[in-house]
């Protein structure tokens, strides 16, 4: 779960790939916990990125309206 260098897009793609694998039952139960952890980590990363972006945008808009 170390790779924090993933882009938002890569993270989303990976999340979707894992979800699809789970859906298609391509995942072994043995791997499940690990993969769920991975998705969780990726979602957290994405949410962090989003929050950061949101704050930034808010600031820009505020600046613009003044």
């Amino acid at each position, binding site marked *: 779960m170390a790779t924090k260098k993933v882009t*938002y897009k890569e993270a*989303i793609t990976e*999340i*979707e790939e894992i*979800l699809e694998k*789970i*859906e298609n*039952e391509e*995942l072994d*139960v043995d791997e*499940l916990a690990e993969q*769920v952890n991975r*998705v*969780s980590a990726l*979602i957290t990363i*994405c*949410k962090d990125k*989003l929050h950061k*972006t*949101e704050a930034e*945008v808010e600031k820009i*808009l505020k600046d*613009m309206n003044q």
Partner: protein
Amino acid sequence: MSDQQLSLFELQRQVKGSLDDTFSMPVWVKAEISEMTVNRSGHCYLDLVETEPGTDNVIARCRATIWSYTFRMLKPYFETTTGQVFTEGLKVLLHAKVEYHEVYGFSLNIRDIDPVYTLGDMARQRREIIRRLEEDGVFEMNKELELPLVPQRIAIISSPTAAGLQDFLDQLHNNPHKFVFYTKLFPAVMQGNEAPGSITKALEQIFEYEDLFDSVAIIRGGGAQIDLACFDNYELAFNVAQFPLPVITGIGHDKDDTVIDMVAHTRMKTPTAVAEFLISGALRFSEELKELEKHFTELVNDQLEENKNRLNDAADQLNHLVNQMIVSQQNRLNIARIQLANRSAAFLKNQITELKQLSTETRNRTVRYVTIQNHQLEQSGNKLNFAFRKQVFKNKSLLQQFQNLIKFRSIETIKTEKKNLNLIQEKLRLIDPQNILKRGYSLTMLNGKILKSVQLVKEGDLIETRLSDGTVESMVEHKKLSDQ
């Protein structure tokens, strides 16, 4: 040839008299006003002409007068009816009395004017102008120009003294939205015959600074509504239509559009309307900008929201899918457990059935085996019976045959022997010499022996002849050999 000489006066009087006779009543005359003056006392003096159609060649001309009291009634009536100043250049239908004055000669005294004729003529002229502009292909040209989103630099063509101009400028510069407009006045005469030329000149000036302006506003405030004929001018319309900047008109009348209005980019009724149009344009743009900004903010927010939702969805989906997977696996294990139970039971049941079958089979086969053996023993018994009977029968037959044979052969033997004995007996009978002699044969004997050849006897030998019933003795006299 009348040699009667008349004084000029008399001649003029005779002409006057015949004209009076001929034109005792006023007549309706079509003519064009070429010149017109109104003197101090209010009398109107006109110079009327008729030109050859299609050219400017004058083919008739005469003076005409409208007396002041008539003129004072006719002029406003005409002008309000036609919306046109009663002035030079108009084509009119006049009700006039032909007059002839000995001193001043021929003239017409105008009693009435039919404005309908002039109206028709004006409309015809306007149609003509429009047709020409369309033929030239310029009629729509100005309309095809694109009005800048916010026309802020306005070239104004107007009379500097016009009341409407100041209102227009005030309205524009003091707009409540604080839009800034840059205006530059290009003065021009806005009525009368000079107007087209003057406006054209103003346009030419603007043309030189074309790049400095976004549009041209031709405005005329407050003036009488009857001065509009000057805007139905071909040359002016031709210039306006072809002008490289969009032209906005605000000539200030409510009636039919002038040709200038028609060819202009945008036609507003009054200068105020033009100002409002310009301000509203700016306002619209400003609102669009605001809208855009709002839209942009919304988009950004939407996207952020969407991404948040997507992540939340992913989390939900993860939860759901994992649960689903676990449930599915649990089901699978439960099914495996049930299958294990069922299949084990089925397996064992099958084995039991198989064992039962084996025991049934054992019974069947044993029974069959025993049956077959029994049958074979039965058969052996039958065979024994049969073979034995056959043997007995055969032996019986053989014995019978022997019996028959011994009978047959013993009888046969006896018969054969009997036959044999009879044969011998017969033979014996033939051989018995006694019997031969009895049949007439005789035996010749020489010296006690039977004579079998002639050569054995000589003549003179004594021979004995034996017959059946006795003997004869005789001497051989002669012997002869038989020929063979």
